[in-house]
């Protein structure tokens, strides 16, 4: 671990030193980063394999006597593993990507910030005490802000960076308060003691839960704390966006798991329900917003919110189970959410990398301007399709696996709890089903509109396939999607080892079905359900073969133009992304509150319009009704304070007079 961080440090220095020569700097920063990540990965794997934590000290801050130490517990190791599994491909990708997408003058900044971010994330996951955690947490925030503001000429990215900073600082404030209250209560700083769960009890516990929920929720981007996410993630360079969406949010998740779920003693049922509720809302709203985006990176960002929601749902189920003292069930639910952390990281990373390639090739982020890219960038297209299918939770790919486990957890939760609470579980399941189906719709749209049919703009028509250095990582991640999808058992088994280390969880002793399959057992029922994707692959291939054989005449097909109602087929006759999501937009108009205005420009008579302009937009509910008023209020209050310093010496003197009189009255024991 130390080695890894030393490497990071060296890399940072190297990157800073070679700032003037962009190429050298790029290779130094990214190469070093890959090396460091590899080292950390080995540490993580080692911990997970052995099941024993690795501790150590990074630095002693002599001045304040604060010791920055780390302790890689199995849980930390899991998150570290996820982090590095993405970090390495991202760095590799960046070697090709930065060359074109990041101006030479900024390479050093980006390279350095990237390494700082990764280092900070590593420390966040491995931190063993309060101060070091907050230290890394802050560092993470700052470096991310720098990355978001990379393109600071753009007003949008400045705004995004600022919004991000503000939101995360409010969050951090909650964390500082929470942790310091804990440490004041225990008189210690080490997580081992702080998060032993015996620190506080009574209402204070709920207050702390609220603080931590807010603090980590902001980073995780759960609704309604999400507003920064769809601004910040797209603003950064795509490979960074991949990192942010895939891993940065998991820092928030990590906190929620480590502190909210397992750090404050046996969770209260209401906490679990809060998690499930927030999770469901985030999932559905997230995917609904994603559905209507035409900026591909914003679309992916919103889908991140959706997946965080799914993760929260599983976690919440686990907490409810813990509250009911059902260790086995809780273990499964938590495992489900942790599994989804991994899977989401993989396919979201993949999708962002793909999007990055596309944006670079077409020079636009609007999918309405793309189209027909599959023929021009076949490999990117293929990988993106794989990612799209994975995120839509289709079998044989990894998305399905984790959602399957989540479903199981929810159903078993229903089967093994009593009272009205139990109805929450199947409802959660139904909502999860809705989410998945909507996600499928969303990504049919995303892939179909941007990669299929005719190019919708000259830029798209002129797109060229990405550099091999950028394709490699995508291929690797796509492959990972398939492997994790076909052998979910292996992942689940690993997770049993991880969950073993968490208090109150009782993972099954003998994991059945080996690497290929997963089984779910409920209390009282054996083999509630199991799944072995590989088996499913067989009839699939069989059916495919049959289809090909049956339709063999189709192999020699005649080509003919698409029928466009007798007209000529152009990009303008194609179905647009907006049109695609129109039905859902109308069905869920309660959520979107869409506003549309149509203006008809006619010169002779209104019945023969020259031009019809149509604009439709969805209302940014949270921004408009929560955040904007808040910000305005603060500024107005600040403005009001101006009168204190209005420039009149007499006023200033009167303050002193007043203070003097008041204090004299006070000392005189009142009048």
């Amino acid at each position, binding site marked *: 671990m130390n080695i890894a961080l030393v490497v990071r440090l060296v890399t940072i220095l190297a990157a800073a030193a070679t700032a003037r020569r962009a190429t050298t700097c790029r290779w130094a920063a990214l190469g070093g980063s890959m090396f460091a990540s590899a080292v950390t990965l080995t540490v993580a794997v080692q911990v997970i394999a052995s099941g024993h934590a690795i501790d150590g000290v990074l*630095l002693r*801050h*002599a*001045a*304040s006597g*604060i010791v920055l130490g780390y302790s890689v517990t199995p849980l930390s190791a899991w998150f570290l593993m996820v982090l590095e599994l993405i970090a390495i491909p991202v760095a590799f990708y960046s070697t090709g990507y930065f060359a074109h997408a990041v101006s030479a003058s900024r390479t050093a900044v980006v390279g350095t910030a990237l390494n700082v971010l990764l280092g900070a994330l590593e420390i966040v996951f491995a931190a063993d005490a309060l*101060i070091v955690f*907050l*230290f*890394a947490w*802050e*560092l993470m925030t*700052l470096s991310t802000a720098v990355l978001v*503001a990379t393109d*600071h*000429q753009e*007003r949008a990215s*400045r705004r995004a*960076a*600022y919004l991000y*900073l*503000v939101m995360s*600082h*409010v969050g*951090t*404030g909650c964390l*500082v*308060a929470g942790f*310091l*209250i804990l*440490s*004041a209560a225990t*008189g210690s700083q080490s997580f081992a003691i702080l998060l032993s769960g015996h620190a506080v009890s009574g209402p204070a516990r709920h207050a702390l839960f609220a603080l931590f929920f807010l603090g980590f929720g902001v980073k995780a981007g759960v609704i309604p704390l999400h507003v920064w996410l769809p601004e910040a993630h797209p603003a950064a360079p795509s490979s960074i966006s991949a990192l942010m969406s895939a891993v940065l949010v998991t820092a928030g998740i990590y906190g929620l798991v480590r502190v909210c779920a397992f750090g404050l003693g046996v969770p209260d049922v209401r906490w679990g329900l809060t998690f499930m509720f927030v999770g469901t809302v985030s999932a559905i709203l997230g995917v609904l917003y994603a559905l209507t985006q035409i900026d591909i990176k914003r679309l992916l960002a919103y889908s991140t919110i959706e997946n965080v929601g799914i993760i929260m749902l599983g976690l919440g189920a686990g907490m409810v189970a813990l509250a009911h003292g059902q260790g086995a069930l809780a273990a499964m639910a938590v495992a489900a959410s942790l599994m989804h952390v991994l899977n989401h990281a993989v396919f979201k990373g993949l999708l962002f990398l793909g999007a990055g390639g596309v944006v670079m090739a077409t020079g636009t982020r609007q999918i309405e301007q793309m189209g027909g890219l599959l023929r021009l960038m076949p490999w990117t297209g293929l990988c993106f399709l794989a990612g799209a299918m994975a995120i839509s939770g289709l079998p044989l790919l990894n998305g399905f696996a984790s959602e399957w486990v989540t479903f199981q957890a929810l159903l078993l939760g229903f089967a093994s709890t009593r009272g009205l609470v139990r109805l929450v579980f199947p409802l959660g399941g139904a909502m999860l089903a809705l989410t998945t189906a909507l996600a499928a719709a969303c990504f049919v749209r995303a892939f179909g509109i941007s990669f299929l049919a005719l190019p919708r703009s000259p830029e798209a028509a002129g797109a060229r396939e990405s550099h091999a250095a950028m394709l490699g990582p995508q291929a690797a991640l796509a492959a990972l999607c398939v492997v994790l999808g076909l052998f979910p058992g292996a992942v689940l088994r690993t997770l049993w080892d991880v969950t073993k280390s968490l208090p109150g969880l009782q993972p099954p002793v003998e994991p059945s079905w080996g690497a290929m399959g997963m089984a779910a057992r409920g209390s009282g029922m054996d083999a509630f359900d199991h799944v072995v994707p590989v088996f499913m692959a067989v009839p699939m291939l069989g059916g495919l073969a049959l289809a090909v054989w049956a339709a063999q005449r189709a192999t020699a097909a005649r080509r003919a133009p698409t029928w466009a109602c007798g007209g000529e087929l152009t990009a303008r006759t194609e179905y647009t992304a907006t049109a695609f999501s129109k039905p859902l937009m109308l069905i869920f108009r309660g959520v979107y509150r869409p506003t549309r205005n149509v203006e008809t420009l006619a010169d002779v008579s209104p019945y023969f319009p020259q031009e019809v302009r149509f604009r439709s937009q969805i209302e940014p509910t949270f921004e408009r009704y929560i955040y904007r008023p808040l910000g305005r209020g*603060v*500024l107005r*209050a*600040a*403005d009001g*304070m*101006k009168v*204190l*310093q209005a420039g009149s*010496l007499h*006023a*200033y*003197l009167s*303050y*002193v007079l007043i*203070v*003097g009189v008041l*204090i004299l009255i006070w*000392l005189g024991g009142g009048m």
Partner: protein
Amino acid sequence: MPLLVWTLVFPLVTAGIGGIGGPRALRESIMIGGLTVTFALSLAVAGQFLAGATPAAFGDALRVDGLSALVLVLCAFVGLISGIYGVGYLRRNEDRGLITMRMRREFFGLMPAFVFAILLVSMSNNLGILWIAVELTTLASVFFVTFHDRDTSLEAAWKFLMLGSLGLAFALLGTVLLFASGQGHLGEGVGALNWTRLMQAAPIMHPFTLRLGVVFALIGYGTKAGLAPMHTWKPDAYGEAPSPAGVLMAVGMLNAALYCVLRIHIISSAALGPAFSGGLLLTLGLLSVLVATPFILIQWNLKRLLAYSSIEHVGIMAIGFGFGAKTGVFGALLHMTYHTLAKPVSFFSAGTLAQLHSSSNFDRIGNGTFTRAPIASGLFVLSAVMITGSPPFGLFFSEMTILRAGFVGSHVAATSTFLAALIVLFCGFAYQVGRLVLGPPRDPADRRVPQPERFDLGTWTSIVAAAIAMVSAFYLPGPLLALIRAATDVVWGGA
């Protein structure tokens, strides 16, 4: 003659020569030389203290204990770097022909005089001498406020002097009352006002008189330190003073004033227990932080921004002392140290930016300075990160320590308010820095094209200062740490 007297003599002499005149090169070298020697001497004095001695002179009128040693070293350091930067700063204006003879005399004469006054404060053990020394700092700094001789600088100077003198009157009353409360137990002669004697007499002082005295003294010296609601002179004065003097005021004078506040605080803690003056400090500190916050959010002027930030920081230190307990006091002193190291960077870089654009008004400077003055802007961002208490820099650790002391001392409400204020402050700073540094480059059609940034003395000084501040975040030299510990003992241990 003992070493600490030399420490005072040198800046005084330097001031004298600087005031007389002579060729530019000579003046510059004399000032830098003098201040360097002063710094070296202050280190030597601190060394004596660490070696176990307690340097003193004039019948303990001057006496260097842990607290004095710490403040002495910090102030001497600030004096040195601001002196060097000042030379660079003046050169820039000389090149642009903005400097008159009066300015030269004032600058080279008053800079070391100011340093002298501050050092005198930090060493004096006699409350009377202390008061006189503080008065001297005021008189010395007034002329820096009027330095540029603009309408606004006169206005600022008047306000500064009025509030300052009023504060000093209060401080004097406080001193008199302290003296009165201990009458009969303090003996005769100058020594009667010695802090050490007051400390001995503390337990038997007349409580009411003492209380009144403490209150007035705290308000008085608090005015000099810029605690709200007596802070109102600060933005005006800082906004008008040239940056090098600004640093001396924002760090040197601030530390000195805090030193006085602490001396009073210690006496009252010894006599009445820490709750009384501690509570007062906590209230004033919290008030300062809360007052500073909104003005940082809506600030329109670079230097005033820094002024409010210094109000915030003095507030933070006061809060730390107010929380009390060893942790709080230690945190506050640590904060003082790191603030002393970090603040000059922001003043220097801000000063450079202001000079390049010949204005410190955000609207006049316009945004996107990064493309025009990368070094200064970079340093400014860096210093902003430092003084907002973000990791990996020192103020993060000190603020954490103070916050922790607050929660441990179960001042939950106060600490939470403080924390919230800190967050808003960060947001405000982030916004201001963002709009200043980032953004598209100013269009070439613009007439107000700034001076090109050059690698001159000023720039180098700021770079070095930044380097020191950054290194110090991770490594404070052992002796300095020992000083902080000793100072903590003085303030809390009552040793």
